[in-house]
């Protein structure tokens, strides 16, 4: 009788464990120590990885920091770029995109190219606001709101020659509701998102309305989908608020325009799309009921945008993640994120 009870208990336990949501797992966090003072940074605007090198965009110090990734530490190798606007200089960099061994950096002035050892290759100036960009197939695809063009995505060759423009602006904005700011600025708020490529296709993930557009590299549309349901009730509410802002204008809080993204960052890695969801940071506001203690990374199929897996990250106190890079080590995925913690700014590795 005792044996039967144990067997039943065992079966029930096994069935309970097997019925847990498939693919859901919490990631282990390691704050990577940085071995030298030169490698410390104040604000990591963007991050990328080539092989064993991690490149961190440090906006306020006008440089890209190159580290070698270790198991629990980062070894400072070099700083790429210096403040200025000449060849090899960068000024307030905000984004990075890597293609093979070439690093493309977007700063206030334009796009600069470096090889992976930090050697300057080329640059060209761009003047319209950068929402996101990706360097692929020796071309820069640039997501922007340019008043002279109905297209949102501009494609430049490596010398800055505009080759094509595509994806018609899809938000009907009546500027009489947005009198306090210039039109191109208001447009950038609605078209915020991420442009990325797997080398064959181009994806634009819009973070305000949950729309995803897929193109081939010639700009021919493959599909358009809505991924808002992925983000549950919070995602739906954010899209509703942003939709209301089209006709009512944005609420201005502390001089900033209040809009509601549904995700923070998107990456493509080895045939999968990874989305870091939006974390309503509320550590400073005790009354905010949206305060959350975890952030999720969704893994999507690039052909269908169906959810394949969810990774979950536990947040502690003032942790915030806004961008990430991915690396596979011994068959296991690791995520590298610059993050704000109670101790300052660090780079954390999250792994299975």
């Amino acid at each position, binding site marked *: 009788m005792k044996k039967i009870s144990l067997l039943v208990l065992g079966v029930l336990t096994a069935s309970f464990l097997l019925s847990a949501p498939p693919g859901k797992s919490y990631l282990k966090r390691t704050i990577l120590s940085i071995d030298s003072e030169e490698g410390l940074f104040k604000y990591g605007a963007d991050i990328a990885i080539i092989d064993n090198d991690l490149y961190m965009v440090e906006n306020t110090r006008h440089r890209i920091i190159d580290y070698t990734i270790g198991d629990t530490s980062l070894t400072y190798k070099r700083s790429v770029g210096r403040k200025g606007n000449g060849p090899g200089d960068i000024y307030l960099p905000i984004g990075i995109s890597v293609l093979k061994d070439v690093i493309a950096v977007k700063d206030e002035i334009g796009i600069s190219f470096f090889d992976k050892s930090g050697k300057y290759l080329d640059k060209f*100036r761009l003047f319209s606001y950068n929402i996101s960009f990706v360097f692929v197939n020796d071309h820069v695809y640039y997501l922007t709101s340019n008043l002279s063009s109905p297209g949102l995505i501009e494609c430049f060759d490596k010398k800055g*020659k505009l080759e094509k423009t595509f994806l018609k602006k899809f938000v009907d904005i009546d500027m009489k509701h947005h009198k306090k700011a210039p039109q191109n600025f208001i447009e950038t708020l609605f078209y915020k998102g991420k442009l990325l490529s797997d080398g064959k296709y181009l994806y634009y993930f819009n973070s305000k309305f949950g729309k995803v557009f897929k193109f081939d590299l010639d700009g021919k549309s493959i599909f358009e989908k809505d991924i808002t349901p992925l983000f549950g009730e919070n995602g739906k509410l954010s899209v509703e608020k942003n939709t209301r802002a089209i006709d009512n204008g944005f609420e201005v809080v502390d001089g900033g325009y209040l809009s509601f993204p549904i995700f923070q960052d998107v990456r493509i890695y080895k045939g999968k799309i990874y989305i870091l969801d939006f974390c309503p940071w509320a550590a400073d506001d005790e009354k905010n009921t949206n305060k959350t203690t975890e952030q999720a990374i969704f893994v999507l199929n690039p052909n269908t945008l169906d959810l394949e897996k969810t990774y979950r990250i536990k947040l502690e106190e003032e942790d915030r993640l806004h961008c990430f890079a991915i690396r596979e080590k011994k068959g296991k995925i690791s995520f590298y994120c610059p993050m704000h913690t109670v101790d300052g700014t660090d780079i954390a590795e999250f792994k299975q």
Partner: protein
Amino acid sequence: MKEKDIPLIYRISILILIIGISMIVNSYSCIMLSLTGVPDRITKNIDRKIDKIILLYGENLCGTCPTGVFLLSLKEKIDILFIVPQEYSQNEIDNLKRSFLIKSKLISGNPETKTYLDRLVSCSKKNPNNRNLYIRLDGVKKIKSIIAF
């Protein structure tokens, strides 16, 4: 030993010399501006309808920052001569025109234009980091006012 007094005439001469040197040093840019005049690169491109010159040698020519917002306020105007640094490629000039809807004439400068800009900034006592200048011309194409932006 009693020191020998310097005669009054020498004292006055030295004072005048010092004042003169400081005046020349302080007004060197303005003196050179009046001596050299406006570079040919600019004068040859000022036609009858142009009554403003905009020198865009500063940083931060981004679409949504104050400089960009100001440039966008000038869209569709045809009475301005825009001048950008010599280093700008034709692609970059095209990108600039598209981003700020520039319909006026836009040319790239040369070393004389840069020197002219440096002297204008210095002579008009503008912040040397402020290298975007908006120059209004009068009826005879002389400088009426300079605004740094």
